[in-house]
């Protein structure tokens, strides 16, 4: 019986300093110099890709390198007659991309370029009788979509348009015996979904449903000897979980329960010293998804060169402040 823990070994050749300028170059060239194959393969999530890139650029003070007008035009074209927003022009609307679009527009303070009333109606139409949300008209239910729906509506100041109590009831029904949350009632606890559920409860002010000590312990158990965090027991560490686990711990007021220095070392080791950008694990290929989560994690860990990020929305804190939003957080 193997007793070895699933983890990675950090070698001394991996980066130890934050390569800020390289990351700005990586994001701004993404999609321009990128080989065409990768660009068209990611069209189905383009809107989220833009959100990751813009948030990363804003957190490191390089937003002006992105062509704002072009992006606003693009978002406008992606809104469907029904009000929802798709990943790209001509793609069907989906809650994931609707939230990404609203996050981008909030950052640019340009919510009025889309039809907000229809967008709200679209989100509202996806709520089910049990309080859950479908991602689109084909009806896949997942706690991710509960988060998308309330995050999106709260950014628009329209949270009262849905049945919040029912929505909370569904999320709480996905809580497991270990204190964590899964995608649906009975599904295994998973750090990404814990983040979504805590974010949802934080926005709606219902964190009292959570056993913060029990869940906080489960979350800090995700830290492995390498310093990296995994998303479930016996899985490998991954930079994106640095964000989901850390943001969850911050919402619970228990961020200091993980060992900061070793996590910083792990995240820095996931930078690509040549191209810039972060990958899931040291030595793998970087992408915008792991880049934003690597930067956001370092921000939560107190890296002064990166602007503060809001743990609930994964958006720059100053944007959340400007909108007057105060998602609930616990303190010890």
């Amino acid at each position, binding site marked *: 019986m193997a007793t070895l823990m699933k983890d990675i070994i950090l070698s001394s050749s991996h980066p130890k300093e934050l390569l800020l300028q390289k990351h700005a170059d990586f994001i701004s060239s993404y*999609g321009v110099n990128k080989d065409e194959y990768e660009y068209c393969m990611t069209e189905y999530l383009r809107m989220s890709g833009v959100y990751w890139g813009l948030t990363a650029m804003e957190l490191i003070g390089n937003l002006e390198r992105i062509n704002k007008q072009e992006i606003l035009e693009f978002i406008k074209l992606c809104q469907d007659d029904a009000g929802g927003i798709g990943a790209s022009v001509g793609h*069907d609307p989906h809650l994931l991309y609707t939230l990404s679009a609203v996050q981008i527009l909030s950052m640019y303070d340009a919510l009025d370029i889309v039809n907000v009333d229809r967008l709200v109606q679209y989100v509202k139409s996806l709520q089910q009788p049990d309080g859950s949300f479908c991602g689109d008209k084909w009806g896949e239910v997942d706690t991710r979509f509960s988060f998308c729906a309330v995050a999106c509506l709260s950014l628009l100041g329209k949270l009262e348009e849905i049945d919040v109590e029912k929505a909370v009831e569904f999320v709480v029904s996905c809580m497991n015996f270990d204190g964590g949350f899964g995608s649906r009632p009975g599904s*295994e606890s998973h750090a990404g979904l814990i983040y979504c559920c805590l974010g949802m409860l934080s926005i709606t002010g219902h964190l009292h449903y959570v056993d913060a000590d029990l869940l906080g312990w489960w979350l800090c158990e995700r830290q492995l000897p390498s310093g990296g965090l995994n998303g479930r027991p016996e899985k490998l560490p991954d930079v994106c979980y640095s964000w989901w686990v850390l943001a969850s711990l911050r919402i619970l007021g228990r961020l200091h329960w993980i060992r900061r220095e070793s996590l910083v070392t792990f995240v820095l080791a996931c930078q690509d010293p040549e191209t810039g950008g972060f990958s899931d694990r040291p030595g793998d290929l970087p992408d915008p998804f792991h880049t934003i989560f690597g930067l956001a994690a370092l921000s939560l860990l107190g890296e002064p060169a990166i602007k503060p990020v809001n743990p609930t929305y994964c958006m720059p804190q100053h944007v959340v402040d400007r909108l007057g939003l105060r998602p609930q957080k616990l303190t010890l």
Partner: protein
Amino acid sequence: MAEADSSSEELYDETNWVLYKYRVDWKDVTPVPQDDGPYPIVAIVYSEKFQDIYDYFRAVLKSSEKSERALQLTKDALDLNPANYTVWQYRREILKHLNKDLIPELQYVKEMIEDNPKNYQVWHHRRIIVEWLQDPAYELSLTETILSQDSKNYHAWQHRQWIIRTFKLFQNELQYVNQLLDEDVRNNSAWNQRYFVINNTTGFKPDVVQQELMFTLDKIKTVSNNESAWNYLRGVLLHHDGGISQDQNVRQVCEELYSSGNRSPFLLAFLVDMCEENMERDDGDKEESLRRALQLCDVLANEYDTIRREYWNYMARSLAQRMDCPEREATGSTKTD
């Protein structure tokens, strides 16, 4: 099945691939080029095959063509990019419109799942086809195939739970869970499934609780440093009248492990929780329980689980505080910012 399933990939293999724009049976369609999103200002040079297929896909989408050839086209488009949810949605609309036999579709999506087991869209398509058919016959074996390659695949477990719950297929599931735990006793997904099955069948009645405690303690005795088993043990004890500290068997196994020199952080953490509960009981030795809990937190913080030192220090502080003012139930965990 084979006939309906042949994609044009098989008709035109890689070397003989004929672009849609050169196919006689597509002469009547005008391709719709990609409207580029942000970032690329210059038109992107897609791979010719990719561009050709998606230009024609956009054309049928635009004209709402729901035909056999359009169905074929979605297959070619999905071969190139199975994550494109718009293509899947359109494929379903065509299937509905043509009133297609769905059994071949099950075979097709099975192959797609085997090639892309971590893709949301393929699993969702599977679920919708099963819903349309109202037939769960192939689902348990499909998920077993996928789980035999990756025993923690979240999509496969989600699909399996949905099938089992919807079509009441709980009967042999514990057996399957046992088999997985025999293969890997640290498989958290399998432990979660165990809870799911019991919770939805017998429930955690006193005799079931006893049976589950014995099962779990047995696994812990073989491999004690196993987060999943200890979490499950706590989960079962949520249904025990005596909480986590009053079950004779549980106490005995834990104390024996400790006396034998076992210092697994999960064992020590469990002992801390037992002490904590004893501190709150009227018949217990409060002072002794606190003393032991603090000693355990100390060795956890400084020796056996140093990476989580802050957590153990917090536990120690909050236990000591509670002893001072016992009316304070929780330890500040409900304060809101």
